[in-house]
């Protein structure tokens, strides 16, 4: 197998290489090496049901202030986008991205017959099923199936986590969950596992047998662990990121985006946004972490000339009720907003009308945009994939990319 030049230099004695051609090596690591136009998606899942109304705030809406006497955020305290719309005060980097034209906000996203269980609603978002269907595969997993039939590493999609989400499970392929490429490499490199995998003679007559499936998964895991680790060291990001799980995770993602890895979709989560009690303190802490990590990440992308190639979007399994509850919190609701961040947006800013608080369904927002239309748009327009096939149906495309 041909080893790519960059990988070869990495694998060979770095000391010798850099002594012999220091400038040459440096030139190789410059940004021009990564082919521009290699489009990447980063999904940031806000687990627990983020309160969208205190995220993108209708600062001139009386109903908002009336229904949230102690929880509403006053106009002067916010990161202002327009006369009518502000962001939560912690989201200063999001405001800066908005001002630069690198941010879009999609309001009223949801799905028909919403479910208020975290688990169930998250499954619906991750599998992209209707709310009365139970699917065992996720939309990213099915994207992976389409990209990786018989490929060596199922690394077109990665989740930065210890445990793989339903979103990244396909029918024939599962993505890899990796929080720390070095740790995964270390664990999978245990001699016994290597030997067991190497010594196995596969039964070519029946690769449907469960034992063959297990060995296939094992071999893929070991080789992917190698591949991801090596790629993560090709061009590790030197930028400063906040010392949080999300900060570290986005730094890992940036390092991989700068490498030659074939990954197109990265998936990472932050939570818990389930703010039934004392919402303000909890949401503020999470938004500080999110804001600082996303700022470091987008700064890093800009420095390395990749801002136009990366689309980061956020979602949560549901929004929260419009009225606050008795514990200075909010309970489970329905429709919610999404942030879309990229230098390659075709439409930017606030994409559609803010929620109509005068037209509620038993105290809940009505959804106007099905999240599956967003997925279809990302799959088709950004990743150039067969959205209909992956989503199991046709969803009209939006025009943000």
């Amino acid at each position, binding site marked *: 197998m041909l080893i790519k030049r960059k990988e070869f230099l990495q694998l060979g004695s770095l000391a010798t290489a850099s002594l012999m051609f220091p400038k040459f090596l440096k030139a190789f690591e410059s940004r021009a090496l990564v082919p521009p136009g290699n489009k990447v998606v980063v999904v940031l899942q806000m687990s627990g049901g983020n309160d969208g109304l205190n995220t993108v705030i209708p600062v001139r809406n009386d109903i908002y202030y009336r229904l949230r006497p102690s929880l509403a955020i006053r106009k002067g305290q916010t990161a202002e986008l327009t006369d009518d719309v502000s962001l939560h005060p912690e989201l200063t980097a999001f405001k800066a991205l908005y001002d630069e034209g690198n941010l879009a906000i999609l309001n009223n996203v949801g799905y028909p017959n919403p479910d208020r269980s975290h688990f169930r609603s998250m499954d619906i978002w991750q599998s992209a099923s209707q709310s009365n269907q139970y699917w065992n595969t996720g939309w990213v997993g099915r994207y992976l199936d389409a990209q990786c039939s018989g490929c060596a590493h199922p690394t077109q999609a990665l989740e930065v986590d210890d445990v793989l989400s339903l979103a990244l499970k396909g029918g024939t392929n599962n993505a890899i969950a990796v929080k720390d490429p070095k740790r995964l490499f270390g664990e999978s490199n245990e001699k016994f596992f290597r030997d067991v995998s190497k010594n*196995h003679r596969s039964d070519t007559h029946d690769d449907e047998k469960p034992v063959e499936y297990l060995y296939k998964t094992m071999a893929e895991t070991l080789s992917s662990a190698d591949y991801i680790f090596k790629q993560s060291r090709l061009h590790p990001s030197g930028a400063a990121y906040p010392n949080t799980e999300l900060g570290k995770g986005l730094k890992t993602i940036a390092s991989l985006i700068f490498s030659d890895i074939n990954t197109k979709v990265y998936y990472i989560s932050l939570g818990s946004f*389930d703010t039934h009690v004392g919402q303000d303190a909890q949401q503020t802490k999470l938004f500080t972490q999110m804001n600082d990590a996303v700022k470091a990440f987008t700064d890093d992308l800009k420095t390395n000339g990749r801002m136009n190639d990366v689309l980061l979007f956020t979602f949560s399994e549901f929004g929260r009720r419009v009225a606050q509850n008795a514990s200075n919190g909010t309970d489970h609701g329905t429709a919610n907003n999404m942030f879309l961040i990229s230098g390659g947006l075709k439409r930017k800013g606030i994409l559609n009308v803010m929620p109509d608080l005068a037209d509620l369904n038993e105290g809940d927002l009505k959804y106007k945009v099905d999240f599956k239309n967003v997925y279809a748009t990302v799959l088709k327009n950004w990743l150039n994939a067969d959205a209909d096939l992956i989503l199991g149906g046709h969803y009209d495309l939006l025009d943000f990319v």
Partner: protein
Amino acid sequence: MAEFFFGKNLNDGFKLMILNTVLCFKTYCMAIKNRLKNQHLLWRAGFGPAVEQLEELEKYSPEQYYKALVKASDKKPEYINVASDDLKNIYEISLDAGRKKNLTAEDRKELNRLQRDAIKNLNLYWFKEMVTSSAQLREKMAFFWHGHFASRNNNVYYNQLLLQVFREHGLGSLRRLLKEVSHSASMLFFLNNQQNKKGHPNENFAREVMELFTLGRGNYTENDIKEAARAFTGWSANPNGSFVFRKGQHDDGSKTVLGKTGRLDGNDVLNILLDNRQAARFITQKIYRFFVNDKPDTTIVNSLADKFYKSDYNISKLMEDIFTSDWFYIDKNIGSHIKSPIELLVGIQRMIPMQLDNDNVMMNLQRILGQQLLFPPNVAGWPGGKSWIDSSTLMTRMRIPQMFADKDELNLTPKQDDDQMMGRKNDGTANVPTVGKKKAASAGMIIKAKMDWPQYISKLESVKREDLIPKIKQTLFQANTDVDKSLPGTIDASSRESYIKSVTIQLMSTPEYQLS
């Protein structure tokens, strides 16, 4: 027989010797076959062979062994009650219209915490039953029904009541079982039937009872669901968990479900569903895939379903038909099943009994591997089979035996579950990731397991050292494998005891051990 083989010239003594050898050999063969088959039976009709059973596995035929399993599961199970007195007191106040206004916000928080704790204890209690109970068949059936009639509920009393239904009726009549489940607070609330009222139907329960519990998709119409939902109006439960029929909310008009017309009530609909042969086929196929082989054999499933239907849904009889058949014990079915996380974790502990210092380890392992008792992913239950395996779960599964043996660290964080935790951590504070070097509470958990090795090692007392690996392979694996050729270099041969331990742990850390 000896004459046939050796002619007439051999003297009688010699003939007898030969005969004995042939017979001996045959007995030995029988023993090997019995052991493999009985292990197969124990993995499928239970949670795997226990260390105490190792010697008897060769002595009995599978039919004898199955009889013994049935007998051990005969007794009515004792009700499991893990609710503490504290929980009971505060819960009773919360149900009392007069006193509940005295509860402060703190009290309510405490009530939630106690409920959560109790559900965790119920999970661990049942897990332990699976490990230690001799009523293996009963617990395995309960485990199956828990995944078939899947519900989640934050109230421990509702969980306890439904679990008792599975354990008490799991081997009885499906008619009774379906009725008990449909009358349970856990299921009625989970599927919103308390909101199903005359004139304002909620079809959730009616839909799932047809799609997932009895007939399967494509065997009813949307109109059948609408009509059935009307029949279930007024079905609800009291806060103490007992079924209540709210007559005022019931629609007692005429309905038509699957072609049957009348002023049907919920019980009529349940009977109509089971009167349909498709229900027998649907459930038999699910049982076959769970207990026999993920790939159903249509001919066998159909013939089993026929008998199941004719017996008016006698579950014991169906399980006997399966576990005493010849086809159950053929090669294709042995070692073909990917153990579910619970089967894996329970199975290890049945072979090497152990005590874990920290209860949360077992809960976190269940969650990380994707199967937490009492928390099925949705009403469809766990999909099973290959879906258990991805790169993360497979690597974790193969590291677990080592973690137990080495007092290792569980360096993995399960996904948050806000349906249980409502945005809080175990200590009640807001669940926000920690900043800096402090480790998250759930990560970095030290696994301290006191493993009871002497019992296991004593079972191998008479085995010669060079025969130890083959013997341990026979005990742990259901299929032929030469995975032991990777053992050299990873084995601690400093003493016979450490040799046995390290061979066992390493062989449990293989793809083959994931299968039963």
